[in-house]
């Protein structure tokens, strides 16, 4: 008995050591990047804290106050004011506008981009106008949007849609126009000609560029959500930021900013994951 115990004791560490040695660096390597990524915000928080904490007349609240406000905004039970426990409502309102506006932009910009990229007549007809409209910032559209669509969510949808529109359009046109000519030759000598080429060559070949457009478009939709919600809507992250600003509730403003940042980040990650799945064939993205 004691002999077997001895041998197992001696033998056991030998296979264990190499696996332990190989898992340790991988765990470390996996944690190293998130840790590095957190280092900078942590430093900002520290500087922010010492710059604002305990100063009576600071216009910017210290991080601890913002954290409490965020907790109250999400779960209530601290301030019990008009903002308590309303985060989910505002978040859902903004998410629905971002994705709704993005979806409308996608439905219009994708087919339009395919047509402009593929048909020279459509390109000559529309492209110059679109290029002139493109530099006009979304904020400049705000007054006109409110006249055309009235106060409220319809204007918000329009502005978010406008923000997402150009990235999708421009990248789709680019994708369609940069399909390798060789692939058209290959398709036609294999018996795929005319409109069939559109679906079997043009569309799949331009998917990576279209996907880049979707990603940028969704990002822009989050960027313009605050402007979009300056149109007199009652709910939404942009709406509470604008309202809290007027009430000098700067901690709520910062909470809104943080939530938009996190929500935009998460939604970008989801789209990227989806893209990696769908575009496994593309060496650039895989």
């Amino acid at each position, binding site marked *: 008995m004691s002999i077997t115990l001895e041998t197992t004791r001696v033998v056991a560490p030998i296979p264990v050591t190499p696996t332990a040695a190989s898992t340790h660096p991988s765990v470390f390597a996996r944690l190293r990047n998130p840790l590095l990524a957190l280092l900078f915000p942590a430093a900002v928080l520290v500087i922010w804290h010492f710059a604002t904490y305990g100063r009576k007349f600071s216009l910017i609240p210290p991080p601890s106050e913002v954290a409490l406000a965020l907790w109250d905004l999400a779960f209530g039970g601290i301030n019990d004011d008009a903002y308590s426990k309303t985060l989910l409502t505002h978040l859902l309102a903004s998410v629905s506008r971002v994705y709704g506006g993005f979806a409308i932009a996608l439905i219009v910009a994708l087919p339009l981009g395919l047509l402009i990229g593929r048909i020279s007549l459509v390109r000559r007809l529309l492209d110059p106008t679109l290029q002139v409209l493109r530099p006009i910032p979304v904020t400049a559209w705000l007054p006109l949007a409110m006249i055309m669509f009235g106060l409220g969510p319809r204007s918000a949808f329009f502005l978010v849609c406008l923000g997402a529109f150009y990235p999708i359009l421009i990248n789709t046109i680019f994708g369609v126009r940069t399909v*390798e000519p*060789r*692939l058209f*030759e*290959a*398709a*036609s*000598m*294999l*018996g*795929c*000609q005319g409109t*069939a080429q559109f679906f*079997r*060559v043009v569309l*799949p*070949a331009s*998917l990576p560029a279209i996907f880049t457009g979707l990603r940028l478009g969704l990002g822009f939709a989050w960027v313009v959500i605050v402007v979009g919600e300056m149109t007199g809507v009652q709910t939404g992250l942009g709406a509470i930021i604008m309202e809290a600003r007027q009430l000098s509730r700067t901690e709520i403003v910062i909470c809104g900013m943080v939530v938009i940042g996190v929500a935009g980040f998460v939604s970008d990650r989801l789209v990227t994951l989806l893209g990696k799945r769908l*575009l*496994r*064939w*593309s*060496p650039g993205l895989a």
Partner: protein
Amino acid sequence: MPSTANPILDLRSVGKQFELQGQNIEALRDANLSVHKGEFVCLIGASGCGKSTLLRIVAGFETPTRGQALMWDMPITGPGPERGMVFQDYGLFPWLTVRNNIAFGPTSRGLSSSEVKDKTEHFISLVGLQRFADAYPHQLSGGMKQRVAIARVLANDAEIVLMDEPFGALDAMTRERLQDELLEIWQRTGLTVLFVTHSIEEAIFLADRIVLMSPGPGRIESEIAVLLPRPRDVVAPDFNDMRRMLSEHLHSHHGRKAA
């Protein structure tokens, strides 16, 4: 080769001119060429001799400005599956797996899914890519990509395979293997091959007949039948004699042009 039967391919005084920045360029002048079914014909010549233009006219990618290009006595009006092209840069669809690249042609022509499947699997194994059937082109080596490109036109029932310097981008070892494999497929299937190359050795190793072309303007200079028995030995004395003869031929055009 049977010269009595109708040729599968017949070029009659084919010429091609095009404009480039206001200049008129004659890419091909008065080319006459007949290819019979089952023949392996190599086009060889310096760059600018019109060999690729000739191939692209047969493929239907270019229309001749003079003369006629006929297949089975019918004018060639555009690309078609009976004339499969293998490009030097492969031209595979990067978003399709090996299997779906090979299935592209049969699917486009509307074959039933069971037919497509049978053909695809048959040609995947013909070129020995069973293990890579689900890989994407960017995961393959150059040699494997070119195997897919060949299988793709064979699976589409091509009667003539047009090859535009197909092995030019490959390393020497891979090139030799693919030459062997191509000859084996050609002998087994009775295919007709029109093969553009700038390698004299490759032309002698592969062809029944070599068409020599020369530049300025691009034209067919002469045709030489290669009567060496197959499989050919690239270091045999008669192979070397032929290589020397062809080399002198090609360089004499060169000299004449320079003089």
